[in-house]
């Protein structure tokens, strides 16, 4: 190295130097006994922090079981809501509404989310200025509060151009738009993980771009995309805030259908009963929470199992 010149101080260099200095200072000045105590105490404190989170989780589950356990029976899912007879009320209409909403969500997010990710990653011109904007936009959408999507749904889907009214389809589209960024981001990661050698091999055999994507890239990215979809659906099942604005809080005895009739979903029904003062309704709400927890656990397990089983080691 020529005298008088120093290598540029990159961030990494600075960090390495600072770390080395801290390490040297630490090992030279700390008295041995105090250091051993600290070395033991520190992870203990950290573990304490972690256990707060885990205890909270355990407390929540136990509380739900205690509070709502007595109401868990078949009637919980087969009975409709009943104003007069809270002990007999059940979540039937809510579950049906949830099924409609989630069904619509799945039908929408799989093609739209995968399609958007394929376009951005495989077909779009990356040198253009608007490509970066696309990605930035999706990342921003992923962080918009869910209730703002409710406002969007109220303005454009229930009223506005789509004029669907307060029906399950409106709730379905609203929630689908809410979780779409999550699916797009997961699909983008999965598609990016497919190595370029696969694409090159396919194109060298005379495949068109779409043939390469459809026959090679998508099947290889399948498990990553599926995991993203499952996680998005798990989130969608539990969403209540945006649905408040698109009409899900009603008292409805009739089973809803997709495009007409008032509807409600499981979490919204739980919310509705939870905010009432009657004790039986609160118990009912807690029982509903148990049902939801079971669902969430099931979906998370499926997603984890899928991830472990089909993880492609490139």
């Amino acid at each position: 190295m020529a005298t008088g010149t120093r290598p540029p101080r990159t961030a990494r260099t600075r960090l390495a130097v600072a770390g080395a200095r801290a390490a040297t200072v630490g090992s030279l000045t700390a008295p041995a006994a105090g250091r051993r105590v600290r070395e033991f105490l520190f992870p203990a404190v950290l573990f304490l922090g972690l256990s707060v989170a885990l205890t909270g989780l355990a407390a929540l589950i136990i509380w739900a079981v205690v509070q709502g356990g007595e109401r868990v029976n078949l009637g919980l899912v087969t009975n409709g809501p009943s104003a007069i007879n809270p002990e007999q009320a059940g979540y039937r209409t809510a579950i049906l509404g949830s099924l409609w909403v989630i069904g619509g969500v799945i039908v929408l997010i799989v093609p739209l989310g995968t399609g958007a990710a394929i376009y951005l990653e495989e077909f779009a011109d990356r040198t253009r200025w608007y490509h970066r904007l696309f990605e930035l936009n999706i990342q921003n959408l992923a962080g918009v509060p869910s209730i703002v999507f409710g406002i969007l749904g109220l303005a454009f889907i229930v009223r506005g151009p789509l004029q669907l009214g307060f029906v399950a389809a409106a709730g379905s589209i609203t929630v689908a738009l809410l979780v779409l960024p999550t699916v797009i981001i997961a699909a983008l990661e999965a598609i990016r993980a497919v190595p370029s050698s696969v694409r090159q091999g396919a194109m060298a055999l005379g495949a068109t771009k779409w043939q390469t994507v459809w026959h090679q890239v998508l099947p290889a990215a399948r498990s990553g995309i599926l995991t993203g979809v499952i996680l998005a659906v798990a989130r969608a099942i539990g969403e209540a805030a945006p649905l408040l604005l698109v009409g899900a809080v009603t008292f409805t005895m009739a089973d809803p259908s997709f495009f007409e009739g008032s509807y409600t979903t499981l979490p919204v029904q739980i919310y509705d009963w939870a905010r009432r003062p009657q004790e039986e309704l609160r118990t009912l709400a807690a029982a509903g929470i148990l049902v939801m927890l079971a669902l969430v656990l099931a979906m998370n397990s499926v997603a984890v199992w899928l991830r472990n089983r089909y993880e492609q080691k490139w």
Partner: protein
Amino acid sequence: MLPLTDLTTDQELTMSDHHRPGYQPPHVRPAEPPDHRETTFELRDVTVSYGGSPAVRGVTMDIDRQQITALIGPSGCGKSTLLRCLNRMNDLIPGARVEGSLRYHGEDLYGPKVDPVQVRKMIGMVFQKPNPFPKSIYDNVAFGPRIAGVRGSELDGIVEHALQRAGLWDEVKNRLKDSAYGMSGGQQQRLCIARCIAVEPEVILMDEPCSALDPISTARIEDLMLELKQQYTIVIVTHNMQQAARVSDRTAFLMVELTADERDRWGELIEYDETSRVFTSPADPRTEQYISGKVG
């Protein structure tokens, strides 16, 4: 439907003008007329640049049919870049530009009506690192014919034929449904060759096909190449001079050139001749230096 083109078999070489001091025209000896070798590729002053900086410059040569042509030279001399021009794989790299004339059986390979996808069906490629698809052995070989529209029972025959020609059939005939990733490196590369053959190309391009393989697999693939050349035109890029000497009929030597301030570098064709002559009595001193290991 065969396009009616005017086929010229005479090897007319046009040297382009390089007004550079110290420039020596490449030593390119045309093939002997009595062989009546047909020309597959005619390159005239081909220059490839990435994002404005040239990678290989002014290449003029003819590649003959049903022969093995080897491209040798040190790293960075543009051999792979040149190879990728022949099946328009450079199209996939943003910012890549190909100038000059590149004719395939007399037709301009980069003409406005030419469809790169069709080109690649006729000019196949095998890559340096074996890249089988994450699918079964059968599906790997069947992919090309499948997307060309071949269905069902015909596919079985094509797959078997291709695997036999690649010398892989006996080893895998009982496990066609197994994942291709379960095979050894040498087997995977032969699978890639089978995959390429299944599309019935005319030309097979090979970009350092054996550099990631052990010597035994390498020997098997070299034997395979010698068999395949009876039916296909093969162009191979190799780092291994002995390999070029062993298998190729004609050898092209490219070398790295630098600008005075060493900022830009590109490759140029130095010598192109029958392999035996290139390796025993090369015309250019630079060739001699490279072959004897004095350089690069």
